[in-house]
């Protein structure tokens, strides 16, 4: 089985589905000849031509708006937003239109579309090449939100997302793009949307993470193991609709919860997770659930490693939570 990094796995998913289904169209800024600024769409232009791999003008609202139109017609567009920081010019089309089309038209129109976009920090991108805006889309009814942490999941989830009949935000953790290689089948396979994965079992505390921070959570789990704390690590994979059962089941076992995400804390997805768990497993909570997140500041440049909720911040949170005495 070939080894792929996340860039290659996403590329493989796109190529696979473009071969399967000629209605799949890739469009965005620089996705064509050059294959995207992260080279995720490399080679697709050569294989599928400029009718199916479209370099668009520089307008995210246009990319998403025309992609919605294509989807209304019955195609399955996979628009790319070059950085998720640049999704905001398309915000109206996403939240007012794509998200509401099925509902508002009484089911007549649907928008099967996957918005692919790199997310997160740790690549010296500063304010505008590092943000994690997932909670804005989770708040918007009608959207699904996916964020794989590794190449295998990325391919399987992207194939599911493209086949899904609802609009999906597909966030690709850019810090992981070339950092991890693993076995990824050339052939097609899917990973269901809406299913989290327990990537490490443990007894004392549950850690929920996704994307690039998953690796930090795992590293912390290793670290605290040396101090005798057994952490259960859950990779959400799909952020919304969230697999609440897997989380609640784990918290019922451990009684303790730490949530990790890069986005700012205030109204981040961590707040929703914390609230859901509190609502559903209040009596099982033996310690206050904790959020380890980006700070409530714009994403900084020089100090980005102090901004991110990395291992050095997760580990103490795990220890404190695990050792909390009610």
């Amino acid at each position, binding site marked *: 089985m070939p080894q792929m990094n996340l860039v290659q796995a996403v590329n493989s998913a796109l190529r696979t589905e473009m071969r399967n289904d000629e209605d799949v169209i890739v469009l965005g800024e620089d996705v064509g000849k050059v294959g995207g600024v992260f080279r995720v769409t490399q080679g697709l232009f050569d294989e599928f031509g400029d*009718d199916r791999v*479209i370099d*668009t*003008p520089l*307008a995210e*609202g*246009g990319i*998403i*708006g*025309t*992609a*919605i*139109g*294509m*989807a*209304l*017609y*019955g*195609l399955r*567009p996979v628009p790319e937003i070059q950085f998720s920081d640049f999704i905001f*010019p398309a915000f*109206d*089309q996403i939240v*007012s*239109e794509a998200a*509401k*089309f*099925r*509902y*508002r*038209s*009484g*089911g*007549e*129109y*649907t928008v099967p579309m996957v918005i692919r976009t790199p997310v997160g920090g740790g690549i010296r991108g500063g304010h505008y090449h590092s943000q994690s805006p997932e909670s804005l889309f989770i708040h918007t*009814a*009608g959207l*699904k939100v996916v964020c794989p942490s590794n190449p295998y999941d990325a391919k399987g989830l992207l194939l599911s997302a493209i086949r*899904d*009949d*609802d609009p999906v935000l597909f966030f690709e953790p850019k810090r992981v793009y070339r950092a991890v290689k693993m076995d990824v089948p050339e052939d097609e396979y899917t990973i269901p949307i*809406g299913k989290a994965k327990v990537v490490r079992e443990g007894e004392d505390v549950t850690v929920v993470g996704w994307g690039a921070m998953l690796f930090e959570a795992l590293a912390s789990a290793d670290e605290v193991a040396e101090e005798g704390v057994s952490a259960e690590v859950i990779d959400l994979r799909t952020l919304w*609709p969230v697999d*609440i*059962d897997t989380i609640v089941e784990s918290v019922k076992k451990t009684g303790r919860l730490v949530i990790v995400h890069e986005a700012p804390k205030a109204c981040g997805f961590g707040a929703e997770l914390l609230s859901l768990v509190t609502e559903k497993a209040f009596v099982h909570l033996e310690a206050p659930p904790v959020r380890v997140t980006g700070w409530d500041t714009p994403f900084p440049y020089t100090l980005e490693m102090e901004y991110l909720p990395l291992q050095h911040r997760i580990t103490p949170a795990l220890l404190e939570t695990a050792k909390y005495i009610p």
Partner: protein
Amino acid sequence: MQTEQVVPIRTPESSFDDEVVTVIGPDGKVRPEADPKLPVEQVLDLYKAMVRTRIIDTQLERLQRQGRIGFHIGSLGEEACIIGSAAAMRPQDWIFPCYREFGALLWRGFPLQSYVDNMFGNAEDVVMGRQMPDHYSGKKYNFGSVSSPIGTQMTQAVGFGWAAKKKGTDTVVSVYFGEGATSSNDFHTGMNFAGVMDAPVIFLCRNNRWAISVPSEKQTASKTFADKGVAYGVPAVRVDGNDFLATYAVVRECVEKSAKGEGPFLVEMLTYRVGGHSTSDDPRAYRASDEVDSWRQTDPLVRGRKHLDTLDAWSDAEDEAFRKDTEAELKACIAAAEEKPKPALSTMFEGVYDETPWHLKEQQEQCENGPRAKEHH
């Protein structure tokens, strides 16, 4: 430092400001050069559709004032450009509406009862009472879905038209919007993408002179709205939007060209919003009544009627009878719509996604098992 030298900074010239396509003259006679030469029955159908639109507008406004429906947004004075342009589209073509084109929807064969059900947001409303009145959806009739945010339908029409072309069809898409909407983000990206992608899309700008209380002169400093095509390499034309034959002819020509791959086009249809912006608006607060009066002179229905007279195709008695029938038909639809129940509680939770996820099932259960709200107060 001196700069007396001549630098050719161009104050842009308009290619459009004195050329407006008209077919029907003040006397009702046609200018043969631009006349689409439609068979008489078709002319009559167009005229009747305009009258029907007017009657519906009048009645719905009344219903709203009586508190029987919550809202209506009408097309008083704009019937010619709406019906003329809709009729110019071929059966295989698609129409992406703004919010003022129920006349086009009905022209397409959408049942009047369904339209009235939408006005009441009842259980048989095609959008299940989820949106405000006049926010319908007509996929079976090759007709889009109305939403309130200004402009968004334009880029969507471009993607749709592009897709249809790539699929090897000769489908053309028309998209309506007001002149105010030319200021929106989506006009810009829609026109630009259409130009670059060679999409078979006809941008139909209803220049009715007003965007709620903002007159068109405050909307842009461009000489005309048609001139905006230049910025995108999109051919444009201005037409008398109160002349249903002129609108028909111009849009039809665009359709035929677009179908051959020569689109997109921008059509500025000159008309006037005779009524308020919607039933929520009272235009007396911001515009002079003599302006409105002078536009009433150009009433597209009066002009249409004059034209029919030149054809000897329609009598006063026929007109009277048609109006009466239409009113009766509408009255029956209203009575039926008013009787129908509200949409079921479950419709609030279903259809957000293809399959309803756990959290919505949970919320639906909470809602259905909880106490009911009082009515609107």
